[in-house]
């Protein structure tokens, strides 16, 4: 999968657009692509949680990837899609929908096509980037899907989001969340 190191074989990646940036995910992690449908908002959930949808009788959580990645939000339009991903979370498989501005194409890439992520000057934490592909004049970032959407990351973001809801409550929790954010400097870098 996207986490595995160079195997010498060609792997397929689904590329999608978020704002002006291009990203790609291993097709092995992509279950399906849905058109945008009404999403039921879940109250008191973090801002990047768009809500839940009914996927053939199952409840599927949908994340607003733009907010999660800190890319300015844009209006939903006809190109907006939900990419259903199979994320490995602490050894358990979890299905979730990721809202993207548009789905572009499937890239067939060999190990030699992928460059290592930049260590300096990137607005994205290299921890979440598996590699980069240069296409025409722009770069496409290949994501470590499991890592990006893993539970820990969401939990931290959630606490941050809760701060907004109740400042008073956050006062009490400040100590705690400070402790945790200190443990994960990644979160601060990303913002």
């Amino acid at each position, binding site marked *: 999968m996207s986490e595995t190191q160079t195997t010498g074989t060609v792997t397929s990646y689904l590329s999608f657009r978020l704002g002006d940036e291009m990203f790609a995910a291993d097709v092995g992690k992509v279950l399906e692509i849905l058109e945008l449908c*009404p999403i*039921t*908002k879940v*109250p*008191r959930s973090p801002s990047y949680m768009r809500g839940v949808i009914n996927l053939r*009788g199952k*409840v599927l959580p949908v994340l607003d990837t733009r907010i999660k990645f800190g890319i300015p939000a844009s209006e939903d339009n006809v190109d907006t899609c939900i990419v259903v991903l199979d994320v490995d979370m602490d050894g358990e498989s979890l299905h979730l929908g990721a809202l993207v501005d548009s789905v572009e194409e499937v890239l067939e890439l060999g190990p030699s096509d992928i460059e290592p992520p930049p260590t300096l000057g990137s607005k994205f934490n290299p921890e979440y980037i598996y590699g980069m592909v240069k296409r025409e004049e722009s770069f496409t970032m290949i994501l470590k899907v499991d890592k990006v959407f893993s539970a820990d990351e969401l939990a931290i973001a959630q606490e941050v989001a809760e701060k907004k809801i109740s400042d008073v409550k956050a*006062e009490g929790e400040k100590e705690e969340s400070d402790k945790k954010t200190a443990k994960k400097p990644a979160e601060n870098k990303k913002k």
Partner: protein
Amino acid sequence: MEQFKKKFLEEATELIANLEQALLSLDENPQDKSLHEEVFRIMHSLKGGSSMFGFDKIDAFTHELESIYDLVRNQKIELKRNILDITLESVDHIKILLESGDELSAENEKNHSNLLNKIYKITKSVSGDIITEKEEIEKHDDKNDNVIHNQLSDKPTYQISINPDENIFKNGTNPLYLIDELASLGHCKVFAKTNKIPEFDELKPELCYVSWEVFLSTDKSIDDINDVFIFVDDICEIEINKIDNSNLLEITAFTNEISNVVPDDGFSELDKIKELANNVKANEVKEEEAIKDQSSQDFYSQIKKNVISNIRVASDKLDDLMNLVSELITTQASLTLYAENNQNSELVTIAENIEKISRQLRDNTFEICLIPIDTMMVRFKRLVRDLSFELDKEIQFTAEGTETELDKTIIEGLTEPIMHIFRNSIDHGIESADERIKKGKPKQGTINFKAFHSGTNVYIQIKDNGRGLDAEKIREKAISRGFISPEANLSYQELINLVFLPGFSTASKVTEVSGRGVGLDVVVKKISDIRGEVEIESQLGVGTTITIKLPLTMSIIDGLLVEIDKTSFVIPLSSVDKCFEVKTETLNNNFNNRVKLDGSLIPYINLRKEFDINENCPDVQQVIRINYDNFNVGLSVDKVIGEYQAVLKPLGRLFKDLEIVSGATILGDGSIALVLDSGKIINTFDRETLERREAYYKGIKNIEDN
């Protein structure tokens, strides 16, 4: 055969469970005779079953065990604790034997003979003489039975017709004496032929009108029979025929049938009798087989008795059924919606009927899946008994409300955490007898288990009168583990709640029983997995109470469908009291969050505000009055749509910290409604409001101070 064996194993497990239950009741009430009988009976069934299916070791072992209880029920020995101990140990051993398929590992072998020795000791030492004597009598009886049986079977059966001369009385012979004499030779059946007796006015008392037909089975020879008639053969027509070489009179069918064959007038034909004999004998063979079968079926006949009122169903089949019912209800919801939108009255009627039926189906299925808490009690009693013995503490265990029923998945998830709580109570809670006396407490500690319904929840309370939780100790521990800062100012309740934190154990030393580093946090986690909550109350030196609050069921709830903006929510109907219309401005221009409903002022929670939904606010909102812990609290929503059966679907791990929503459900039109946990909402928002208010006052105070 394998199939029967499996069945036997199942039954044996059940028998053992019953046995354990009976033994534990005996522990409380050792003199109860009906219990002695029951224990003996169960052991006997177990023995019968195991011998039939080739579990010879269990058979032999249970036989020995059974003999103790034979003595007990015959009041030859008194049931004492040591006997019960050995019995319970033996029951455990039988369990092992059952699991291993009657095989013994080297280690168990030792245990096996140990236990047998102990059992022998009891049976022999207490009343050795009586026992041997008794056994001998039994053996003797057995032998006698067999002997008689065999002899009888070999005794030929004769048909004897006695037709005395009319003037037999004149000789001074009483023919009845003849029959008496015949009867003394063996087993006989006599038919009197009375057809020749004339009307009363013609009857001459000095004449004999009667003749007899006698069926005799005897081991005496035909000559011996003839000897009976030696003095009367000149005035009696005697005919002796051998019908069969075996004793036909032993066969019930023969004795029943023979009276039909024997005519009232004159003697029966030998051929007919012989035919009957052959028929009967052929049947008898079959019957014997049947009897043999029956002895093996004895075991099953008992089971059958149970089967009539109970059917054992694999639990995964129930799960399947439950899932199907859930699916059905979801589908039914779309049908209802479709029917309403199509204005077809016929369709609406059908949809309504289906709704009614599926509701009933749902309720029935629920009921099927409910099992009483009682099923767990044996394990608990056993645990308390064994542990208190092991730790040398005297504990009285009482249980109330064990008939309370819960969904089987909940019961399954509940057993382990409750066992853990018990272990904690016995190990850390209850003091040793000496310590208790020193403290001026009764020597015997008590643990009370109580289950009861309240609203939509079932509560389970486990209360001990042990030493209670030492807040100072907890505080020290929490500080040393870094859970709280040394200057933190926590109330007693807050301190004792710390025991629920992972990695927290107050026991200063690790014992085998509890305190293996697995703390109450695991209990909390396991309980919350089944949507339950755990609360702890304690008073130092007085005792601890742990309360578990559980939902009645896990998958389908009756709810009230409401709408805020365009989002649908479901509020559990069980907590809903009444709905009111209130103007939005009344709700918004309110400082103390109280609204007057039905003449009384109740606090309310503005869900629009709490959920941060600001669009499309209607002029008039609905306030739903909720009954929460005997308080009335209002929840405001835009619109009440109606009753709705919600099939609860989990929101998944991403929302696991979101307490106020207990799940989601899919509506008829395919959209999703969130199922709100009204209790949690009130809890959360109430706390927040309080905190906000406190912070506000604190702010004022700070300003004043400055």
